[in-house]
């Protein structure tokens, strides 16, 4: 069996205490929420931690607060959120995106905070210590070369958190807490286009909450989410499409189309959105707009499936997700 290396476990009971411990311990410490990403990474030794700070007993991180906007505590489990009435009725595409994560058992453990902070993935990296020794590691951990693109100066590991593209499309914001204070930034600003340094948050910051604006709910936006993966459960995506459209008088006034699991960050398919604005939601306009997503998707050979094919079918799935948002036909499902 793969074994967890030894570490010190801290279990703070308030957010302030958690922040204090985290800043005190420095980069050798890591927080853990559900552990469904951290524990495998520690076992495979592609992440290291001398101290692990559990957020399980921090009361401020729990709960769903629904008013005009809806605020989701970082420690809410994915299983609770996919069924939370505030999400199912007002942000159904997000509930669906969350319900597409991993498997029912893992969703009982995994949290929203852990999901937005999910480590980027790559088939050269998500491997045991012994395996990675046989490729002399790679740039993301302990090595020098990126095996996906050996002459590239950067890492192309994939941001595969399924909540992320939908949160970006919904214009959600994230509240970050640290011993230096709190700040709230758009989820879109949390991510960086870099497989190694993939979060814009400082290491001493804890994700406390995710806020969903009232103007992004089902009364205001037409939304849809699609996830492409090999199997109907357990698998990470190899492409996801998050769509949020605002319409007035039958024409699109605002559009967000965000692709997930295809780059190191949730990448907006800007050309698609631009092509939609001002257009009616018809089969033709959607097809024409979706064609523009091809350029937004440059998949690399570090996930399941043929990378060329992933790029090739991106417009097809963008089109289908747009059609689902437009109510032209039922969503294909995740």
């Amino acid at each position: 069996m793969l074994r967890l290396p030894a570490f010190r476990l801290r279990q703070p009971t308030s957010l302030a205490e958690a922040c204090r411990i985290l800043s005190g311990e420095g980069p050798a410490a890591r927080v853990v929420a559900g552990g469904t990403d951290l524990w495998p990474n520690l076992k495979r030794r592609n992440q290291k931690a001398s101290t692990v700070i559990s957020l399980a007993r921090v009361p401020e991180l729990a709960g769903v607060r629904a008013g005009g906007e809806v605020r989701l505590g970082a420690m809410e489990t994915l299983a609770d959120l996919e069924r939370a009435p505030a999400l199912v009725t007002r942000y159904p595409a997000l509930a669906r995106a969350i319900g597409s994560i991993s498997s029912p058992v893992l969703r009982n453990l995994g949290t929203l905070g852990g999901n937005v902070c999910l480590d980027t993935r790559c088939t050269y990296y998500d491997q045991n210590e012994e395996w990675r020794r046989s490729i002399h590691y790679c740039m993301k951990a302990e090595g020098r070369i990126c095996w996906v693109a050996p002459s590239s100066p950067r890492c192309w590991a994939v941001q595969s958190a399924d909540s992320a593209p939908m949160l970006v499309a919904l214009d959600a914001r994230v509240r970050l807490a640290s011993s230096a204070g709190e700040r709230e930034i758009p989820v879109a600003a949390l991510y960086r286009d870099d497989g190694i340094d993939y979060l814009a948050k400082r290491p001493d910051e804890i994700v406390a909450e995710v806020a969903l604006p009232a103007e992004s709910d089902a009364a205001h936006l037409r939304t849809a989410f699609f996830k492409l993966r090999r199997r109907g459960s357990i698998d990470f995506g190899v492409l996801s499409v998050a769509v949020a459209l605002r319409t007035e008088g039958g024409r699109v006034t605002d559009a967000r189309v965000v692709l997930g699991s295809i780059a190191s960050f949730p990448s907006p398919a800007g050309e698609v959105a631009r092509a939609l604005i001002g257009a009616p939601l018809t089969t033709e306009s959607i097809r024409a707009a979706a064609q523009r997503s091809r350029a937004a998707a440059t998949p690399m050979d570090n996930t399941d499936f043929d990378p060329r094919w992933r790029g090739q079918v991106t417009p097809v799935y963008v089109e289908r997700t747009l059609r689902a948002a437009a109510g032209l036909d039922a969503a294909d499902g995740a």
Partner: protein
Amino acid sequence: MPDPGIPPAGTAAPGEAAERDFAVVGTPFRRVDGRAKVTGSTRFADDLSWPRMAFVKLARSTVPHARIRGIDLTRAERVPGVLGFLTGADLPSTFGILPVSQDEHALARDLVRHVGDPIAAVAATSEDAAHEAALAIEVDYELLPTIGSVEEAIATPEPRLHGYADRGNLHKVVSMEFGDVEAGFAEADRVFEDLFFYDGNTHLPLEQHATVALPEDEGRVTVWSSTQTPHYLHRALTRVLGLPASHIRVVATPNGGGFGGKSDPFGHEIVCAAMALKLGRPARIALTREEVFYCHRGRHPVLMRLRTGVRADGTLTGQSLETTLDGGAYGSYGVASTYYTGALQTVTYRLPRYRFEAIRAFTNKPACGPKRGHGTPQPRFGWEVQLDKIAVELGLDPAALRLRNLEQPGTVTANWLRLGTVGLGSCIEAVVAGSRFRERWGRMPEGRGLGLACGSYLCGAGLPIYWNHMPQSGVAIHLDRGGGVAVFCGQTEIGQGSDSVLAAVVAEVLGVGLADIRLQVADTAFTPVDLGSYSSRVTLMVGHAAREAAERARETIARAVAAQLEVPAERLVFAERRVFDAADPGRGLAWEEAVIAAEARFGTLATTGSYIPPRSPGKYRGAGVGPSPTYSYSAAVVEVEVDRETGVWRPVQVWIAHDIGRAINPALVVGQVEGSVYMGLGEAMMEESAFRRLPKARSHALVHKFPSVLEYKSLTFEEMPPVTTYLIEEPDPAGPFGAKEVGQGPLLPIPPACANAIFDAVGVRIDQVPIHPHMVLKALEAKAKGRPPRHGPERFPEVEAELKLATGRKSKDGTMTERDEALRAGSVAVLTTKLEGKRGE
């Protein structure tokens, strides 16, 4: 084997075959190990534990091919809790499953041949300490060129992975011809030629391999292991440990799935025993999932060139099959696997002439070996897809084409295999009717399609792995005066239900309940030898041995009861835990009383039974692979849905019929059929042995792409379509109560049925598996551009023909009459040969 209960094949119509009543056989019953499995009380190998037990870990090669210059243990020795080490120098003897390829070392001596090859072992007081120490072992390598494919093996004869290969890095080169195939082609109206590729894949049992060893007095040792073949492991341990066989006891624990992946003796099993002996402590090793991928022995990737001659009416005139196998770094079962890629091509449809050529290459990857269907799903895929093409081209119905060429019961095939009953026709009719194939095939809406394919498999390999004249299966029964029946047999429960079959056969013969029976199995010290759970041999061979042992016990008891009740022994019936007079059922003894009567009369009661398969008529080199007491048959129709814009496809429904002869426990039979469908769909849809080679200028690496259960894709329940199973029961006199195998055969029709269904749905041919969506999409694009609507291999490597020798049998047309004459005359045909290769290391 005399079987008075079963009429000869062909005389009984299916429904009326069971003219004798059975109490247990034929009725679904709960498997005897079921409760323990679902309540968690089954003790698998890594559940076993002793005080002072040492935990063993292996340091494995991180390079694909190298000479070991040195092993430095100094850092590892300093890890707290370390108890000791072993390296290759401690275990110098080679071993391997086949006598002709004793090419493995428990720990590498001087060469490592793939990433994951074991090099050194460390034992410690905890698993964590053992792991830390294993990571701290340092190995100095001198890198050698690597071979990643069959083509590279052909192009790189030196340096050799093994000195004993037939030629360069070609482990095995086979060439045989039965009848004049070219003459057969000349007679044909069309000769179809296709290239097919079947990728490798692995077994993926839930249970990762584990072994526990306990040192005992007098330098003896007991080894518990998750192995399908305790007898062969016993032999390997004897050879490498250098102990008398009687000092080693091997117990196979219930396997949490095997599928062929636990059929070889493994280095970690030998190391665990050696470590226990060295330390004088119990020792346990439990592999990680990644290590299971390094043990592998899974399906060989096979490239095929298939040429078949056909008359316009669909009659087959001859076939030539060439295969190449990517064998990985060791021999394993590879010689047998190589022959199996050709051996069963002839048992479904009459092929009057047949030529088979094959090569198995050594490559720097974990060794391939037997996986469910062992070597036969690959050529079966090619054959069944090609038949579909023939049907379409000649305008014939695919079912009719197969039925027209059906092999007949009792036939000796072109390659000298003697068939038993052939239920294939009934299988085809069942799935064709169930799926309404004749009404719907070729007429479904675009994107939906039906595909038909068939298959056949052995009911036990006719020959043991090492040459001997002893039984392949033995059973001993001891009757307790309390009425308990203790059954001893070397057979191994790997999840397939063999414990239940063994108990059912004994219960049936003695007329007792399953609860009266206790099994002692898979223990080389306490049970008669059974060769193991491979080649679908257990139900047939153990069943015969159990039946013989039980019948002998019944006879003894009948004599005692007959004397006591003064009734003729032949009139006694054993049923419902009683022994009574058929003419006067009230007159009888309770089972316990009957046993007491017999023990009082004859002394302690114990009997044995054993089984040796009939000899096969084939006498040529390679004739040892393929013969079986009889063959099972299956047919399947798969319905698929194909997304034309993306190439994504999914099975919607499967209809499968299996010729089981007789189902001893129909519930288990259906379970095996569904499990085979599941595994076959995985191979058709996604499972693959993908390797990564990094840019050569920067790295020497050649690694398994994703040795993990998450990234090595196999089916989940989500993908599993509804399966309708038909059991075809035409009892075969060769099987116990008429039973045939079911563990492997039903996998075979599934991959080709999927490919054929995709053609029916969207008109493109995918001549390889797994069928990834990008392949379907490429073929659809080709079709749209007016190019051949196909995706599949384009080239077949040319290997020098000097190896090929024509058949020694100078036949003009290779007709069956001539073969029958030869058989009657007892003449021996020399049909194949190979270049003289240097044998041994």
